[in-house]
């Protein structure tokens, strides 16, 4: 077939020959692929987290201002990064689902939410544990903290809305719309330490300037963040497999799966 040159982008995109990986956009091909990926991802996550936290807790030097208390950064910062990143990922898959009407995208958004909420909670809680010795307060109504708390409520609202709607298709679309509306909060969190000069310290790591921390601190932080990232990927894929099984339980390909038919 000759390519249609003047058709809109979407038509050309779908009409032409699809790349080989395209088949993984469908649940029957994606499900076994995710199953093969998960054990490897879990092992990598454990290794990276052990390495990052080991460097952070055992090797990195003591901070000259905050003493040993700063070491919670190796949990706090990766969790905070992941909480925002996962919301962006959730909103991305929600938008993809709304635009292309692809069911797996909605399931992906659904699978990301609990992990994102978990990391948001960890970021808030470790922040409280860090704030107590350094600021002398468990909680202050600072812009960064408040906007991160709002992120937790946005995750909670997304999950509550999806679980309150019985029809899965309507739940998918309504949740996706809510995820997109809430995405305005993420830049607010990200820039809050710049826009409002309040108690929360500014960014410690920047791409445009030399790191202000010892290299072993930076290494531990980056490894822990990478480990949290890989953990999130593994956890989301595992949850996604459960959602796929639940939603596609009437499909023939599910009945033929070795773990189901056995």
């Amino acid at each position, binding site marked *: 077939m000759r390519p249609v040159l003047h058709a809109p982008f979407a038509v050309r995109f779908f009409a032409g020959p699809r790349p080989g990986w395209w088949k993984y956009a469908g649940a029957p091909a994606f499900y076994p692929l995710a199953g093969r990926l998960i054990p490897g991802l879990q092992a990598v996550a454990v290794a990276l987290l052990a390495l990052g936290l080991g460097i952070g807790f055992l090797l990195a030097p003591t901070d000259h201002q905050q003493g040993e208390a700063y070491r919670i950064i190796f949990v706090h910062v990766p969790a905070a990064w992941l909480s925002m990143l996962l919301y962006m990922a959730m909103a991305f898959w929600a938008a993809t689902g709304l635009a292309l009407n692809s069911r797996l995208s909605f399931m992906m958004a659904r699978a990301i939410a609990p992990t994102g909420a978990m990391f948001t909670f960890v970021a808030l809680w470790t922040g409280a544990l860090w704030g107590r010795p350094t600021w002398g307060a468990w909680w202050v109504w600072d812009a960064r903290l408040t906007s991160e708390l*709002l992120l937790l*409520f946005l995750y909670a*609202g997304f999950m*509550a*809305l999806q679980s309150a709607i019985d029809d899965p298709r309507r739940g998918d*679309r309504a949740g996706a*719309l809510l995820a997109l509306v809430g995405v305005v909060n993420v830049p607010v969190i990200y820039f809050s330490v710049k826009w409002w000069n309040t108690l929360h310290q500014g960014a410690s790591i920047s791409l445009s300037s030399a790191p202000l921390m010892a290299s072993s601190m930076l290494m531990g932080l980056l490894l822990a963040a990478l480990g949290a990232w890989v953990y999130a990927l593994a956890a989301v894929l595992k949850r996604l497999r459960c959602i796929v099984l639940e939603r596609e339980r009437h499909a023939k390909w599910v009945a033929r799966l070795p773990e189901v038919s056995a």
Partner: protein
Amino acid sequence: MLKVLACVIRRDLLLAFRRRSDLLATVFFFALVVMLFPLGVGPEAGLLRSMAPGIVWVAALLASLLSLGRLFALDFADGTLEQMALSAEPLVLIVLGKVLAHWLVAGVPLVMLSPVLALQFGLPGAAIQVLCLGLLIGTPILSLLGAIGSALTLGVRGGGVLLALLVLPLYVPVLIFGAGAVQAQASGLDAAAHMLLLGGVLAGALALAPWATSAALRIALE
């Protein structure tokens, strides 16, 4: 286009006027919530004066939340909403009309009542002006953002509590800028920065919220 808008607003206002008790309930709720604070924290004048803007704003948020349930629910129940979605007129425009009518019914009375409540807390005249102006700019934002949540929770189990969970986090910027304007004015600073931010939020919400609401309505009507 404007005719459709005017038509929807007139219809919704008429419907609201025929059920005056709903309208009054919102206003009384607003006054009651504000009244509870002096009873709860004690009648110390200085404390109440410093808390007044926040109290009035939080009460306005809650009162607006209370009236949001009615925004689409009745039309959804009797099938009018479906006809509106099927009509040749753009749904966004109909949504905008309904939201404006909601603001006229639920938001404007709060703005008009707020000076009296502010007097009870002993706010000076200039602060009352800032508070009222802030509410005047802020309450349409509450209606616009609330409409999204109201449309998303249409016909959903436990819709009322869910609506609060979805909408209140989105209301937070309005609360911060609105109450912040009065506090800035009280501490001798210029309230203009907060007002301009509030106006910016209103412009953004006016441009985007009706689209999101009509998308949510189409999802609910599928």
